[in-house]
């Protein structure tokens, strides 16, 4: 597939990196000569110096033969205009734009095919808010990915040293077949797709595939008391904070928002229905204690200042908040922050990367989500009638090493498979796979289609 990416900021860079590692032909356009030089050295993509809103540059990047354009610069206007130009240069092109301004987002019909021709708008803030919401639905998890509107969940959870499963092979974990499946294990920087004989160690991050409505709290991956999650304190009432509060208001959660700026507080209080808006500083220990940070199930730090977010989270953690969610912008900070004891990190950029990658898949792959560590991903795909994987027991399907079916969705029914489960045509599959086997897997899922 030939993909043009406009903007080599963090979002564009990460998407290009992922796609080039999957052997796609990527053209990356940016105005900054220094960035282009860096990319030429580090990525196996065609880096083009110039503006993504220049028809000449777009033509030079072969837009006529391209399959997709991703406009991922920091400027909404540039992204939208690039899509508009692209639409006129190649009407068959699929266009994805990163758009942040809420004002643009409200005007859905403006982006429709006739006018701007954007096929998919990725709003990083909303993508991130959605991610935080999913996370909160499964307290105790450090990563949650929803599939099929939340009917299948992929839950990342850190294995505590006192968990009964530590140092035991997966095969010996009984009583959960058909309910829970360990889909991936992240140990340090290494991701593996486990087999029966692999063991879980303390502090591994394991990804569990579960049915959406029965997260197995009785099961030893979670601690006692992690089940309820009802009290949330959000620090920062900016675009993200207010969007998050609005989303959470619709659940049963008890939401408090702390904001420094008095005017913003007023505006927030007018906009929000149930949530309590507090005027104050998130780094103020007394304020946090006063608002019972000790009993808070979640403390979400989403101010515009990422260093501040880290400090607020550390403070809240020290004061007894059960779980913190911290917003970080620089992707390179993420491993550092995890090391100093921050539970969960979210980032608009990472969410945007996720959302865009989820959309980019070809063929029968419906969506794909990168997992922590980025070397593995969860893929949602449809089983074709003509594919080799259907109508035989899973134990006999020759999946590439490093890939495994985590769930089968058959209409209303959800199956967490075992060796004797059988995939039927039209089933939707949730597959966990190491990144390096993804092309092989794609072929497996689509190869028959290519004959038509």
């Amino acid at each position, binding site marked *: 597939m030939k993909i043009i990416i406009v903007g080599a900021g963090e979002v564009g860079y990460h998407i290009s990196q992922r796609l*080039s590692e999957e052997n796609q032909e990527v053209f990356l356009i940016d105005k900054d000569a220094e960035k282009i030089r860096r990319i030429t050295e580090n990525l196996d993509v065609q880096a083009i110096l110039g503006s993504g809103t220049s028809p000449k540059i777009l033509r030079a990047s072969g837009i006529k033969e391209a399959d997709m354009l991703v406009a991922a610069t920091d400027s909404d206007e540039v992204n939208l205009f690039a899509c508009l130009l692209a639409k006129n240069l190649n009407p068959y092109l699929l266009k994805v734009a990163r758009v942040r301004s809420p004002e643009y987002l409200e005007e859905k019909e403006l982006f429709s095919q006739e006018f701007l021709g954007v096929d998919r708008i990725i709003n990083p803030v909303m993508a991130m808010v959605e991610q935080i919401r999913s996370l909160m639905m499964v307290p105790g998890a450090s990563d949650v990915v929803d599939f099929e509107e939340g009917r299948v969940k992929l839950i990342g959870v850190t294995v505590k040293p006192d968990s009964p499963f530590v140092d035991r092979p997966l095969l010996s974990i009984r009583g959960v077949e058909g309910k829970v499946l360990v889909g991936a294990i992240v140990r340090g920087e290494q991701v593996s797709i486990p087999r029966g004989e692999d063991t879980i160690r303390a502090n591994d991050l394991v990804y569990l595939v579960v049915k959406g409505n029965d997260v197995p709290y009785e099961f030893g991956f979670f601690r006692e008391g992690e089940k309820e999650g009802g009290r949330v304190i959000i620090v920062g009432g900016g675009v993200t904070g207010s969007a998050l509060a609005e989303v959470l208001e619709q659940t049963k959660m008890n939401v408090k928002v702390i904001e420094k700026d008095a005017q913003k507080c007023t505006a927030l209080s007018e906009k929000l229905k149930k949530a309590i808006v507090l005027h104050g500083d998130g780094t103020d220990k007394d304020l946090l204690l006063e608002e019972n940070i000790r009993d808070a199930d979640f403390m979400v730090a989403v101010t515009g200042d990422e260093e501040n977010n880290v400090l607020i989270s550390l403070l809240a953690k020290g004061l007894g908040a059960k779980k913190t969610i911290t917003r970080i912008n620089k992707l390179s900070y993420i491993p550092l922050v995890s090391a100093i004891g921050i539970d969960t990190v979210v980032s608009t950029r990472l969410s945007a990367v996720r959302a865009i990658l989820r959309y980019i898949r070809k063929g029968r792959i419906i969506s794909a989500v990168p997992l922590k560590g980025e070397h593995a991903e969860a893929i949602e795909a449809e089983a074709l009638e003509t594919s080799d994987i259907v109508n035989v027991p899973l134990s006999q399907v020759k999946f590439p090493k490093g890939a495994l079916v985590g769930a089968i969705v058959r209409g209303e029914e959800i199956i967490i498979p075992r060796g004797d489960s059988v995939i039927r045509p039209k089933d939707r599959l949730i597959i966990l796979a190491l990144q390096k086997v993804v092309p092989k897997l794609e072929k497996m899922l689509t190869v028959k289609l290519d004959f038509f």
Partner: protein
Amino acid sequence: MHPRRVLRFIGVLVFFVGLSMALALLVAFLYSEPSAGDLAASMGITCGAGLILFLATKGEEVTHLSHRDGVAIVTLGWFVAGVVGALPFLVSGSIGNFTDAYFESVSGFTTTGASILSDIEKLPKGILMWRSIIQWLGGMGIIVLSIAILPFLGIGGMQLYKAEVPSPVVDKLKPRISDTAKVLWKVYILLTVLQILLLLGGGMSLFDSVCHAFCTMPTGGFSPLNKSIAHYDSPYFDGVIIVFMLLAAINFSLHYRLLKGEAGVFGRDPECRVFLILVGILILLVTLDIYGSVYPSLAQAFRYAAFQISSMITTTGFVTADYDTWPSLSKCLLVLSMFFGGMAGSTGGGIKTVRLIVMAKHAYEEVFRIIHPHAVRAVKLGGKPVPSDVLSSIWGFFFLYLTCYMISTLILAGLGLDPISAFSAVAACIFNVGPGLGLVGPTQNYLAVPLVGKWVLIIGMILGRLEIYTVIVLFMPEYWRK
């Protein structure tokens, strides 16, 4: 640098070079020569050694290579390839001692075409074929070949590509480096086949056509004949070879664009225009110089001048005339052509036209600035400004080239070579041309150069082929510091 990673890759490389002996083996079989056994033995040893190296370093990932790894792989790879290439010469007894065999082999891989053989024709056909194959492999680059066919390299390929194809500006034809390498090799193969057909059409034997085409496209210059192209004394063959030498010295991305249907791309490219004009002027000057003084007819003078200038400026080194007997001006112009070399991104050696253009323009700007001290001007190439880091890298390259050139010449002179022979031998080797003047002139060979001199020239050939930086960086103490 990760030594195991480097060794693992070298193992793969050695294995591939071993595999390529199969073609020479086939030739030896067809002519039912005893050399078939020697080639089979060499092939077995090489492939075996490569395999052992590859297996011994098991578990090393070669997908992510650093700059340092890339440089080490390429430099070491070329030295090692030289050893592998020398094996058939030694095993078959065609060349008696290691230094000579290694010289011949490195001269092949670096597409220099300098030979130590006095009687080429007495060698078995299989060995002669091998001599041509190493030139052909070396022309487009053994590393580029491995990037094209090894699927697992990924971005690591980029580091290797830059180390082996050092062009002032990286010219990626396709977004993915392995696709770029594939395209280059396809164009290369296509042109080679075309030349074989044209030579066959003129009545050359299949064996000779293949050998000559294999040595023209890489601008190599080995010939299976003692008298090189002069053997045929045919204007048709001269013409075909001139055209293909020039094509080989033109940037391969232009060929690719031409094949994609972009007509007139040679004329539009600023570097190509200068290159062709330069060739034209040089031919004209030499023709006028040798007309009357050496050749009585203008047509003859033009034919030999055109061939010899093309052969020298493209750094091929084929010979149709004993230019050592030409007047002084012509000889100087021929040596000067060696310095110029072909275009960047071609298989030619030398300083490369694009560097000459940029340096000339930069020098002009410096003079201009003396007249208008406040003028703000940029050095432009084809309407686009040349970034200052590219500029300084070109000047650095030029300085290093000259330094290596001078040191090597001094050593050769110290060994007792006369000045003309020393100067031209170093030029012919460092610019990957082949024949020089005097002792190493068109009718002579490198056998008489003293042992130390041969090693200096071997290093010079590799320095020239990899364009200095890649090799020299390995000798910096800084490189080895952790």
